[in-house]
């Protein structure tokens, strides 16, 4: 509930600011490589992700940040234990809401960061195989919840409106499958991305 209130507060502040100062907006589209860590003995391969952000600048140095983050299906290395061979995969989407402070240098560069909360939806899939004559298969489960995100990046103004940017991001999904399983976990997604920004 506390997280919901914080999300609502950020929305309200953003809307109020919008009515006062309807200018200086930015749209960012980034593609990146992800590294997933579920906090246990997981061993995920690198994955890919798409991030789209809409920024509304409340001040020249501060914007409200709304985003959408989509990962592809990220596979774990195949593993074997006494039960059989298995492999998990995770696919996740998140709605992001936060702030984006920035500093623009005299030269055509700026640095920025993002900090905020996320509402995520994650699907975990497991494939298991036990050997000849014993049926294996696939099982999956979905969950939704809250978390946070933070990032730091740099941008180069190719023109007054178009930016080339890179960004290092850390996202944490808290208590995945809490209440559904006795073994919930936190999912951390670290990503390095590059993309384009458009100011209007």
């Amino acid at each position, binding site marked *: 509930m506390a997280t919901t209130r914080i999300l609502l507060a950020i929305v309200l502040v953003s809307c109020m600011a919008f009515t006062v100062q309807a200018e200086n907006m930015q749209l960012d589209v980034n593609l990146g490589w992800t590294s997933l860590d*579920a*906090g*246990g*003995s*997981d061993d995920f391969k690198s994955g890919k992700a798409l991030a789209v952000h809409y920024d509304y600048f409340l001040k020249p140095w501060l914007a409200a940040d709304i985003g959408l983050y989509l990962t592809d299906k990220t596979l774990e290395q195949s593993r074997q*234990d*006494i*039960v*059989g061979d*298995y492999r*998990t995969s995770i696919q996740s989407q998140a709605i992001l809401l936060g702030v984006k402070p920035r500093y623009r240098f005299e030269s055509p560069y700026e640095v920025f960061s993002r900090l905020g909360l996320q509402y995520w939806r994650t699907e*975990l*899939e*497991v494939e*298991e195989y*036990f*050997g000849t004559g*014993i*049926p*294996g*298969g*696939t*099982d*999956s*489960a979905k969950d939704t919840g809250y978390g946070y995100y933070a990032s730091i990046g740099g941008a180069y103004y190719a023109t007054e409106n178009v930016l080339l940017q890179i960004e290092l991001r850390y996202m944490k999904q808290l208590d995945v*499958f809490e209440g*559904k*399983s*006795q*073994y*919930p*976990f936190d999912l951390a997604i670290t990503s390095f991305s590059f993309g384009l920004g458009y100011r209007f």
Partner: protein
Amino acid sequence: MNMVFRPLLRTYLPGLAAAFFLAGCEIDGGDNQPRVPDQGLFMYAEANRHEAEDSAEVVAAVFNDGEAVNLVGGDVFEARTETERVLLTKGGYFDGSYAESLPVDNGVRDVFFNVVHEPIEARADRWYPVDILNIDPGPGELVGKSAMVSFPQSVTINAPATDTFYNSINDGINLDWDLGNGGNMRVLASVECTDGLAKSSYGVVVDDEVEAGMGVDDGVHTIGLDKFIYDLDLGSSTIKFVSDAALMLLQELLNKLSAGNIDPDFLLKKREANPIESTCEIRLFLQRQLNGQFDTTFDSGTVVGSTSAEVTVIYLPPVTSN
């Protein structure tokens, strides 16, 4: 496998394995299988309590027509006392062998082995929520089979004294222990040698096959040092390197006694130092074994409860002059 060649392989496999050891090669534990009959369902289980340790090493395996059977899909060995229970989730040194530590105290005499179907517990080491993501094929045909072992009287070694030195492989180690109540005796040993530059580590077993009379629980036996120390260049026909489930048991015991700091392949390490020319620490584990009982649905089996005690002796090579 061809039925003609299988007995031949079983006859010559120990020799081949020994030759492989002596060649100084990295040893693959994949075929360290206990001697099992070519036909029928065979049960292997052992529970060993070492000195006054508060846990026993338990190992188990099932063989069908001479081949180890992997328990999969949530089927798993369970070892149980009246108050404690563990699942054998550690894979052993050959396919189909499993091991674990079972908490015990002085009041525990019997250990019950069962094959159970525990689709969630068997996956407990996985990182994800195994209670909601679980492909369960159901219990396999071995589920429900069981065995029972009892611990024999504990072992007390009176001689040799710890760190007794020996200088020749022609020396004899005079073992002296308190008489028991009719168990079968054997010695497992881990040997670690260093010549100052290189190291060797390996395990050996001395039982009735290696040394006549060793198995008798009569309180005394002299074992030649050549049952533990050999010449890497010449090889040895007197050494029986530890293999099969005894290897798993000894490795687990060493692991426990070293608080998990032992190399997981300590007894399979590449041999580089020549033992006969090296200083060797010989950890002798004197074991008293008592046969247990297995389910009548098994055709045959080796099911034992055992207790053990340890003494370490040192081999110092004779000084040579140039």
